[in-house]
């Protein structure tokens, strides 16, 4: 069946004993998009992904994938999903090539048949195809896991924190690979604790403590932010941060790289007043600018609301 909405979740709840890990989750993923769940560890991302993958049942709510019910039709759904779990879950004592052909054969396929899909990714590790998977470096394991998730030509790829613990440069390269896969028509659901990766998704859900804080395109989520935000720099960032926290009108003051992002409670806050305060406190050579927030600013704003 052809569905415009690849994933449809409404009013989903899930608890482990007394702990509610997902509360009233609703969202849709459209065909061909990269949809990101952005949130810290413990937000419920993995539980949600297991439910989408038919590996876990929700306590209540409706979940359909490709228009099929995840409980009744789990077998047909599994044929069409590629899943890369957060933890390395391949066979460490099989070689790179053996792992890949094992995953292909489970789905009644072969490496040769879908080689074109994984070529860009697999070619990086193919020189090591006789090596045991357990002996690969972190980056190579990640590429093998993605190849294994792709080898049966899934319509939907579910990636649980593929870039956690990966250095900043390799993360950029990984997202390039995802863009290529999307261009080949694969729908991608991905989770990440890195807020800066939000801008690489077409639509995102911000998730914290089992609840979705907001869902939209990254641009629209940022545009909704109500805070007037200042970015302030000075030689001694930490002293600046402490001074700003003590400012009578301070709402939030957070370090952001070399700057402090600062917002006020009153609506008529302006640069002059803040500058006056900083001069009074003998801060030298500071610079103050009004900026538009980024996803991390908005996430913190929603978390504390």
């Amino acid at each position, binding site marked *: 069946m052809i569905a415009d909405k690849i994933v449809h979740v409404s009013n989903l709840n899930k608890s482990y004993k007394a702990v509610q890990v997902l509360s009233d989750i609703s969202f849709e993923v459209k065909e061909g998009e990269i949809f990101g769940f952005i949130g*810290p560890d413990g937000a419920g991302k993995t539980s949600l992904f297991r439910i989408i993958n038919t590996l876990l049942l929700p306590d209540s709510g409706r979940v359909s994938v490709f228009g099929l019910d995840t409980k009744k039709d789990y077998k047909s759904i599994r044929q069409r999903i590629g899943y890369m779990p957060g933890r390395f879950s391949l066979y460490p004592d099989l070689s790179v090539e053996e792992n890949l052909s094992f995953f292909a054969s489970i789905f009644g396929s072969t490496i040769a048949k879908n080689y074109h899909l994984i070529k860009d990714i697999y070619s990086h590790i193919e020189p090591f195809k006789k090596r045991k998977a357990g002996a690969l470096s972190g980056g190579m394991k990640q590429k093998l896991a993605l190849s294994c998730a792709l080898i049966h030509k899934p319509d939907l790829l579910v990636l649980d924190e593929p870039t956690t613990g990966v250095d900043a440069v390799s993360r950029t390269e990984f997202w390039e690979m995802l863009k290529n896969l999307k261009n080949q028509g694969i729908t991608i659901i991905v989770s990440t604790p890195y807020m800066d990766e939000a801008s690489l998704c077409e639509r995102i859900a911000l998730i914290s403590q089992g609840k979705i804080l907001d869902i939209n395109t990254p641009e629209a989520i940022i545009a909704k932010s109500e805070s007037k935000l200042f970015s302030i720099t000075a030689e001694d960032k930490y002293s600046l941060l402490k001074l700003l926290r003590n400012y009578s009108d301070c709402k939030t003051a957070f370090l952001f*790289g070399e700057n402090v992002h600062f917002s006020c409670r009153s609506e008529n806050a302006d640069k002059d007043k803040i500058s006056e305060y900083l001069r009074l406190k003998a801060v030298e050579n500071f610079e103050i600018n009004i900026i538009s927030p980024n996803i991390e600013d908005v996430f913190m704003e929603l*978390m504390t609301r």
Partner: protein
Amino acid sequence: MISDKKVIKVENLTKRFGSFIAVNDISFEVGEGEIFGFLGANGAGKTTAIKMLTGLLLPSSGEATVAGFDAFRQSEKIKKNIGYMSQRFSLYEDLTIAENIRLYGGIYGLSNKHIKEQTNILLTKMKLIDYKNSLIASLPLGWRQKLAFAVAMFHDPKIVFLDEPTGGVDPITRRQFWDMIYEAVSEGKTIFVTTHYMDEAEYCDRVSIMVDGKIAAIDTPSKLKQQFNVKSINDVFVRLARPNMALNQ
């Protein structure tokens, strides 16, 4: 304040595994009271270097002193005088907060009386005293990481090694964690930290960037940005770790 006294001194430090050189002739110093960021791509040799500096791995050649002790001959003394915390493993989930502290305190040879007193002081300060007998497994990740940092300093070490302490932590807790780092430094501790968050590199007094077993750059964040004529440490990182990619941009 960073003093002139050096608490880590590394000269021509090298580690070979067979024909593979994981750490290749690195030299640097860390001053007392400094926040030193130790950056590098996956597989650049950071973990091997940290293992040598924390007394867990014998170097192949070169020199290293940590907290005044020699990495070749006094690794046990190094272990006693440093704190260590990593993202991958911090506290025992099936023990309570108090039990974890008692275990760590005991390992470092602190008296029961001291452990009891300090546990109460610490947990009161962290506003966790009501959770003293809660299992670690029941605490949110952010709390655990902050607690793990405090436990790593429980025996009052001079230097604390933090290996990706904020991985996966929410953005507010991540910043609270850095507040704790700054507080520890104001009390005279030296912090040696690794991170994949490039904004956190800016919070360090100095950073080094490792590429293929060597230290490719080392300086204050602002001087590094000047030197490479880029806007962020992330750009410095890209230039060094993937020279080809940077050229294409």
